[in-house]
């Protein structure tokens, strides 16, 4: 018996839900960003599983592009966080609420 496609999709969705949980729960910008990466990775797993079970390379190529874009996104996001920290001396989201009201 081999592992079914639905099992892979369940693991992928579970990882996505955990990432979502972390994004809502945590107050540290860096940890929120890590949880976002987790959600991105969960989607990668779903794409690879679909690609394998559909016998097509398209999903794998999409994951390749997602990895490249995620690397660029992480670099820019962390640069923004560092710039914010230099200006405000904090990374906690409660203290970064200028746009409220």
């Amino acid at each position, binding site marked *: 018996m081999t*592992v*079914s*496609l*639905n*099992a*892979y*999709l*369940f*693991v992928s*969705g*579970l990882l996505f*839900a*955990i*990432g979502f*949980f*972390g994004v*809502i*729960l*945590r*107050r*540290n910008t*860096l*940890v929120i*960003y*890590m*949880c976002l*990466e*987790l959600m991105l*990775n969960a989607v990668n*797993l779903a794409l*690879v*599983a679909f690609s394998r*079970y*559909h*016998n*097509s*390379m398209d999903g*794998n*190529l999409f*994951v*390749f*592009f997602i*990895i*490249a874009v*995620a*690397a*660029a996104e*992480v*670099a*820019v996001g*962390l*640069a*923004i966080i*560092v*710039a914010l920290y*230099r*200006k405000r001396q*904090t990374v*906690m989201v*409660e203290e970064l609420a200028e746009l409220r009201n």
Partner: protein
Amino acid sequence: MADFLFFLFSALTVLSAFLVTVSRNAVNGAMFMILSFVGMACLFLLLEAYFLAALQVLVYAGAVMVLFLFIVMLLDADKARSVRPDRLTIVAATVGGLMLISGLAYVTFGPSAAPSTELPAITEMPQNATAENIPFTTASRSFGYGLFTKYMLPFQVTGFLLLIAMIGVIVLSKKIDASGDEPAKQKVAKS
């Protein structure tokens, strides 16, 4: 055997992902994140996407997480007072996560779940590949084939995006003082 490995690696991935969300210390969280990415690479291996497994370890567990650890240690975020999330946030996060998981379980294992497809046999070399339809192979050669035929334009756009990101990071990390302006260049002291 494949079943056992699947359960082992998915348990590793999911557990360490959960520990990322609940660990107090951001450095511990980053370490668990690396573990989670390695588990994900093992799942890619089980799906016979060997090139992507290598890429996952190199780019995510290597480059991205080193960048994260560097920033976490540079900003020394643990020195700042750790804010406990209030009760409403905990309830909202738990309820939202559980709703997602229950909906997911219904879709994948419920009565109306899509029937599982057969695992197709792998063709070893992409000989029967056309520009429209590239069959799944374990060879990284079919990656190159796909990138240079069907996905030529996205490939070039991705390269350009990396260049833009590089320039953007350089601009963002220029020194900016509290008033939002660039500080004036320091005058050389007159002797």
